[in-house]
C-alpha cells in the first residue's frame, strides 16, 4: 500500500498533481479489473480458481496471512513508540496504526473471497466452536480492529478537533463525526489521551502477538495432518516475519510519502528502521534455519517431501527468488553494504524488496505443505493461481491502497513534531 513506484525518484521534476493523477488512474484500473475477476468469482464460485480438494487453500489464504502479518507488524512498530517511548520512530506512528487497520480490512476481504459460501460468513461468529483456532482468530481480528481504531482515534483526536474548527463544508461535517463530539483541546485531555493510548498499547501487544498473528500461525501449527506446519516454532516464525514485513512496509511508505510531497526524508529515521528490520529478519531467518534443519534431520518421509517441494519443486523459484533473494539476501546486502547503507533510495528498495519477499514466504507456507499428499499413493497436488485469483487479489490490494490514499489525504497522519509541541 505504498504510494507511486520508485519512478518518482527519477522524475523529480514531475509535479505532485500529475503523479497523483497517475496514481488514482492506476488504482481505478486495478480496482476495475479486480471487480471483473470478483464478478467471475461470485458467479462461478470457487470453480473459477485453480483450487481443488487436494489443494484446498491457495493464493487468497497466502495473501490473507500476508496482510494479517503486515497489520500485526505495523501495529507492533507503533507500540514501540507509544508504549516503549522510542521517539525516533514517532514520524511513522500514525501511519503505522492506519496501515494496521487497512491491512486488516484487506486480510478479512481475502478470507471472505475464499469462503465457499460467502453469504454465510457470519456463521463463524454466531456458532463459535471453542476448539477451532480459526473461530478464535475471527473474534480476535474484530477485537483487534476495534482496538486499532480506538488507538488511532486517541492519537489524532486533538488534530481532528482542530481540523473540524478550521475546515468548512463537507469536510467540517466529516471531521465533526470523526471527533465523536469531543471538543476538548486542553493539555490535560492530551495527557489523558496518551495515558489511554499506552493502556491500549499494553493490551494490544499480547493481542497482536498471541491473538492476531501468533494465532494465525497457530491455525496452521495445530494441523497435525500436515507435518510441515505441525511445529511449535511456526507461530513464532509468523510473528517474526510479521515484524519484518510491517517494519519494511512502513519504511517504504515513509520514504515514498515524503518524496512525492517533496518533503525532507530523515535519513536517521530510515537507517534506524532499516536496522530494526534487518534485526527482525535475521532472527526470522535463524528460526527458519532451525525449523528446516531439525525437520530435515529427522529424514521423515513427508517432511522431506515438503522440503523437496519447496527447495527444488516446480515452483522453487518462489522460494529462491522471492523468499531468499528478495526477502533476505538483497535487503541485507543493501542495509549493511558500505556503498548503499547511507542511501535513501537503496533502503527504499531494500524495504519494498522485503515486502515482496514476505509475500513469497506466505505462499511457501501455504502451498508446498498442501502439495504433498496426506497419504502416500494419492495424486500429488499442483497449484498455480488462476487469472481470477491473481486479478481479484490485485483488486483487493488496490482497494486497500485506495483506502490508504484517501485516509492519508483526509486524516492527520503526519506527526508534525513542532506543531504538536507548540500546542502542548
Amino acid at each position, binding site marked *: 500500500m505504498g504510494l507511486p513506484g520508485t519512478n518518482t525518484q527519477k522524475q523529480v521534476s514531475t509535479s505532485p498533481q500529475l503523479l497523483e493523477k497517475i496514481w488514482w488512474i492506476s488504482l481505478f484500473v486495478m480496482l476495475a479489473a479486480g471487480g471483473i475477476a470478483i464478478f467471475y468469482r461470485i458467479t*462461478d*464460485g*470457487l*470453480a473459477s480458481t485453480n*483450487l*481443488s*480438494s*487436494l489443494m*484446498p*487453500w491457495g493464493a487468497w489464504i497466502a495473501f490473507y496471512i500476508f496482510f494479517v502479518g503486515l497489520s500485526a507488524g505495523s501495529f507492533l512498530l507503533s507500540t514501540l513508540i507509544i508504549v516503549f517511548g522510542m521517539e525516533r520512530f514517532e514520524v511513522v506512528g500514525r501511519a503505522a496504526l492506519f496501515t494496521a487497520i487497512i491491512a486488516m480490512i484487506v486480510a478479512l476481504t481475502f*478470507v471472505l473471497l*475464499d*469462503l*465457499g*459460501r460467502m453469504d*454465510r*460468513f457470519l*456463521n*463463524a461468529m*454466531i*456458532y*463459535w*466452536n471453542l*476448539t*477451532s*483456532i*480459526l*473461530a478464535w482468530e*475471527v473474534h480476535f481480528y474484530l477485537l483487534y480492529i476495534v482496538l486499532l481504531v480506538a488507538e488511532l482515534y486517541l492519537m489524532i483526536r486533538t488534530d481532528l478537533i482542530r481540523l473540524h474548527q478550521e475546515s468548512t463544508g463537507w469536510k467540517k461535517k466529516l471531521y465533526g463525526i470523526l471527533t465523536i463530539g469531543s471538543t476538548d483541546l486542553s493539555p490535560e485531555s492530551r495527557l489523558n489521551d496518551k495515558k489511554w493510548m499506552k493502556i491500549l498499547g499494553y493490551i494490544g501487544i499480547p493481542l497482536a502477538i498471541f491473538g492476531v498473528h501468533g494465532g494465525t500461525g497457530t*491455525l496452521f501449527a*495445530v*494441523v*497435525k*495432518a*500436515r507435518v510441515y506446519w505441525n511445529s511449535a516454532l511456526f507461530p513464532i516464525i509468523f510473528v517474526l516475519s510479521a515484524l519484518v514485513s510491517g517494519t519494511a512496509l512502513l519504511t517504504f511508505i515513509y520514504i515514498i510519502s515524503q518524496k512525492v510531497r517533496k518533503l525532507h526524508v530523515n535519513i536517521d529515521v530510515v537507517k534506524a528502521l532499516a536496522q530494526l528490520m534487518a534485526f527482525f529478519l535475521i532472527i526470522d531467518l535463524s528460526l527458519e534455519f532451525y525449523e528446516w534443519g531439525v525437520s530435515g534431520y529427522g529424514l521423515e518421509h513427508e517432511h522431506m517431501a515438503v522440503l523437496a517441494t519447496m527447495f527444488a519443486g516446480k515452483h522453487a523459484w518462489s522460494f529462491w527468488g522471492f523468499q531468499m533473494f528478495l526477502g533476505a539476501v538483497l535487503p541485507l546486502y543493501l542495509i549493511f553494504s558500505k556503498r548503499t547503507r547511507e542511501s535513501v533510495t537503496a533502503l527504499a528498495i531494500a524495504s519494498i524488496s522485503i515486502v515482496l519477499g514476505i509475500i513469497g514466504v506466505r505462499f511457501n507456507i501455504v502451498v508446498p505443505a*498442501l502439495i504433498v*499428499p*496426506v*497419504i*502416500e*499413493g*494419492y495424486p500429488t497436488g499442483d497449484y498455480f493461481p488462476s487469472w481470477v485469483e491473481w486479478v481479484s487479489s490485485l483488486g483487493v490490494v488496490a482497494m486497500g491502497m485506495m483506502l490508504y490514499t484517501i485516509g492519508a489525504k483526509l486524516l492527520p497522519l503526519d506527526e508534525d513534531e513542532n506543531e504538536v509541541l507548540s500546542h502542548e
Partner: protein
Amino acid sequence: MGLGDKLNLFMLDPKSYDHMVNTQVKDPINVMTDSDYDMDLAIRMGKDAQKVLSGNMTQDDFHQKYSPDLKIEFGDLYASGNANTPDPSKGVRWGMVIDLAKCVGCDTCTVSCKAENRTPPGVSYNVVIEQEIGVFPNLAKVNLPRPCMQCDKPPCAQVCPTRATYKLENGIVAIDYDRCIGCRYCVVACPYGARSFDFGESYEDEMIGFNDITAPEYGVDRGTREKGKTPQGVVRKCTFCMHRLERGEEPACVETCIGDARYFGDLNDPNSVVSKLAASPRAFRLKEELGTEPRVIYLR
C-alpha cells in the same frame, strides 16, 4: 501285509497314549480342593451340565437350580450377568472393517458410492488407493480402499469454526450443509484426505438427468442439483450411507464389494462381526499415531 498294518508297527496302541497323557494331567479333585471355591458345587454342576448338553435337562432348570448357590459363591460377579451382552443404553455405534487380503482393487466401492450418493466430479467419498510396492521381482500390489474414517476424535470437527461438522451419537461424523461456510479448514486438517469441496461441477453433459435428483444425505432430501444451491460451495464427505442405514441397509460400498472384503456393524456390540474382526491380530487403523481413533478398521 497291508499298509495299515505297516503303519501300526511304528505306533503304540491308543491306550498307551492315554496313559502317557494321564501321567501329565493333574488330579482334578486335588486341583479343585486347592481353589478357593466350593468343590462339591463344581462337581454337581459339572454333572448337570453334561445333562444339559445331552438334552436331559433344560438350561433354565440348570440356572434355577444353581443360581442361589452361585450367588453365595461368586456374589456380584455372578449377579452382573453376561459380560458379552451389549449395553442397550449405549446405542449403536457404527464401524467398518475392510479386509485388505480380500480386496482385489476393482473400484466397485468407489463406483457404487458415486452412484448411491450421486457425487459430482471432483467429489468421491470413497477411493481405492492403488500402489505397487517393492522392487522387481519382489513386487506387491497394495489396494487401500478409503472411506471416511468417522474418527472418534475427529480433527475436522475440532477445527471447524462454525461447528458445522460434528460427531453423531451413532459414531458418524456429520456435516451440517446449511451451516458450513466453505472455509475448507477441515479439508486441510483431515489426515486421511477424506473430505472434498463441492465446486459445483456436474456430470449433466455426459449423463442426462444427473442434476434431477440428489441423494438424501443425512436424511435430508434436497431435490434437484442446481447452481449455487447447497451442498454446492460446502465441504462433503462419506456419511457411511446414513440414509441407507436408517432404512436398515448396509452402506453401498459394503453391499456391492465383490470380494466381501467389507464388513459393517455395531462396534458397541461385542458379538457383532465387526467387533470380533476388530479384535483380530490382523487389525490396524490408519495413522493410529495421530490419536484420531478411526472407526474404520483394516485387516492386513
